[in-house]
């Protein structure tokens, strides 16, 4: 079968993304409307009467049928407008473009940390399976999976920020204004999220590397007299890299989700905080906007991972 051109593949995948975006935003919109509680009550203020709340619903178009409201939102999106917060009137696109870099930086730092620590752990454990190194790695990995991120986050703040005063306890700085300050602020939340990623990378890598190393062609390589280092780097890791890309794409998605809690602990104004605020106040344009952004990010990450897998392993049909 002739291979399709990468542009066509990417185009096809993006087309497939459309129904996913529609479905996700529709479901979230429906959920927000199903959950009792109403932004009109918040908008009407402390002294509200029933009449005033009804009036507010009318002013903000909250009395229209559910599908009409969703349709109106969608019509705006198609025209490139994510509409604005019902409560404060800030453009949702403005909120998101301010929040997104903060979240992205945390996830990037967490991913780098998870890989830098997780890959060596996985490799060392796979070389001598069941040795004491392997058992230690397994233990650390189990801990990493088991410890809740928010708990680790609070311990990190208490020890590293409040006691030692090495890193700031809260907030975020803009990367474009001051990269070093931005990274200093994102480091602790990054570590808190990375712990899980490190464990996952180490465990998965150990597993798939063990499988490769026990296969027949590796035995042949040994018989040819190749050193362990060469077998590992030239053959072993190359073969597990497909698995690694898959793990990374899953990790990025998980880490994005984890920022919802971690951003609250560190008071980071990112996408996670934004969607929580939107959901609590039933400010649905905000929630819709963040969901929309997240879906696109997840689809892009998966697409990139698939393309990379196909690049290292030609057997994978795109």
């Amino acid at each position, binding site marked *: 079968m002739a291979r399709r051109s990468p542009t066509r593949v990417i185009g096809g995948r993006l087309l497939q993304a459309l129904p996913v975006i529609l479905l996700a935003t529709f479901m979230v919109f429906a959920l927000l409307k199903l*959950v*009792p*509680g*109403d*932004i009109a*009550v*918040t*908008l*009407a*203020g*402390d*002294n*509200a*009467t*029933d009449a*005033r*709340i009804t*009036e507010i619903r009318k*002013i903000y178009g909250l009395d229209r049928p559910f599908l009409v409201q969703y349709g109106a939102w969608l019509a705006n999106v198609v025209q490139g407008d994510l509409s604005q*917060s019902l*409560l*404060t*009137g*800030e453009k949702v696109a*403005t*909120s998101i473009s*301010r*929040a997104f870099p903060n979240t992205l930086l945390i996830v990037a730092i967490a991913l780098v940390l998870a890989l830098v620590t997780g890959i060596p752990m996985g490799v060392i454990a796979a070389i001598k399976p069941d040795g004491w190194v392997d058992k230690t790695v397994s233990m650390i990995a189990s801990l990493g999976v088991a410890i809740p991120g928010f708990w680790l986050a609070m311990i990190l*703040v208490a020890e590293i*920020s*409040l006691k030692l*005063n090495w890193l*700031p*306890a*809260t*907030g975020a700085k803009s990367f474009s204004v001051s990269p070093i300050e931005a990274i200093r602020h994102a480091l602790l939340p990054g570590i808190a999220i990375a712990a899980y990623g490190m464990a996952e990378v180490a465990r998965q890598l150990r597993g798939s590397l063990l499988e490769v190393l026990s296969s027949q062609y590796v035995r042949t390589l040994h018989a040819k007299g190749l050193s362990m280092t060469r077998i590992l780097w030239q053959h072993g890791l190359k073969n597990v890299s497909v698995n690694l890309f898959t793990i990374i794409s899953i990790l990025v998605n998980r880490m994005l989700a984890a920022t919802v809690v971690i951003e*609250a*602990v*560190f*008071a980071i*104004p990112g996408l996670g*905080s*934004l969607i929580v*605020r939107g959901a*609590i*106040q*039933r400010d649905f344009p905000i929630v819709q906007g963040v969901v929309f952004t997240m879906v696109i990010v997840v689809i892009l990450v998966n697409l990139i991972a698939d393309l990379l897998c196909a690049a290292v392993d030609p057997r994978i049909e795109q």
Partner: protein
Amino acid sequence: MTQTTRREVMALISGALAGATLGGPAFAQGTPKRGGILRISAPANPSSLDPATGGAGSDHAFLFTMYDTLTEWDFETLKPKPGLAESWSFSDPTTLVLNIRSGVTFHDGTPLDAEAVKFNLERNKSDPKSNIKADLAAMESAAVTGPLQVTLKLSTPDAALPGILSDRAGMMVSPAAVKASAAGNVARTPVGAGAYTFVSWADGEKIVIKRNEKYWKPNRPYPDGIEFSIIPELTTGSRSVTAGQNDLMYQLPPRQKAIVERASNIKIFNGPTLYVFQIFLNWAKPPFDNIKVRQAFNFAIDRETFVKAALAGLAEPAYMNLPKAHWAYDKSVAGLYPHDPDKAKKLLTEAGFKDGLPIELVGYPDQDSVQRQEILIEQFRKAGMNVRFLNAPIAEASAAFFGAEKRGSGILAAWTGRPDPSLTYSLMFTKDAYYNGGRGAVPPELEAAIKESRASEDIELRRKAFATVQRLVMENAFVAPLAFQFELVAMNKKVQGYRPNLLGKPKYDDVWLES
């Protein structure tokens, strides 16, 4: 008090130490000086920076810095005092004359004169997006009767107005700014005449304001500006102060006080506020349609213990809707419901619930709320009431109880208080008020007494009228007040001149920063 727990002794000692080393609020140290940026951790994003269209009680912490009000209040008792209006008088019960201070300008340089005041009052009263129409319900018209004089014609006597004009309704927005903005929307571009001018607002992140160099109060404000970081997670907010990233945090939760005090560089101010934890009752349906059950419910509560156990002792037990320090507090009402489980049981028996009474209340699911619920459930159990809480997030729970659904028989929530007590009572204890969850009938003498409290501006007559209102509300047991929360504000030692106030919404009038 015969027994003193270890915790109380510790609290006394630390209080004494704080008093000695910091020289509490009464002994401000040093000479105030200008300069520096005050960094504040604020718990909530404002709903709007336009006083007319916003809704949340938490907005005031921002609004007060940028908007001055026609009247202000005394920090300790909330009695109204002159603000932008340097004097006011009722020439007859339905005519209020306001004399505006001369020489005051808005941040955009336009004059704050009688025309501007008239514009604001009319906008607050009739703009479709105004949330404070009800505040000015009694105002029929506002007329300019001099370059600096506005005369309000009222449809009924309303002595509450001077107090009301110290809140949203009295915050003056630049008419020029309103006219220049699309659809008169100044929610994100506030222009007032307050101590600080607006610089920027990033939703859920930061609000920056800087000193109004032409402010009318001499020498104020002292700081060059204020930066509010919006941190909804209160534990994180208090950490930002102990870690030195912010200078001050308000709304510190009582359980955090001990932790924050461990940091040597932090001082904590506290004082009573109007913010009252209470159980709103639906007296339009069983079981609370029976006055005996409502009274039994009130007798069952041990408020002293509640304050100690649920609020770390940092609150005042509440027997009505006003705290002791308030100018309209009435001592005789406070004695109506001492903790008396036996009396409660007796009343229940008389009401036909000899074998106990199951009660469903609505509540909130956060940690502090659940702790409060657990303490109360136990107190009610001892008085023969089997209370169960149906918990839901705040927006959902309050909509379900106060709105159309009528879920539960009561809701454990809070009332934030109002600058004039007549609002507090009319918003909860009149037939069609939203905060009368069941829209249940109210005795005519109570409605009359609430009206009466607004009839005269004479403070002694008003005090008497409020005594009647409070007595009728509590004798009918339309509500179960629990405790007035203290305002807890944590700040580092650089911050000087902070004073708590009874409204519980922080003002930074005299705050300055030591370098």
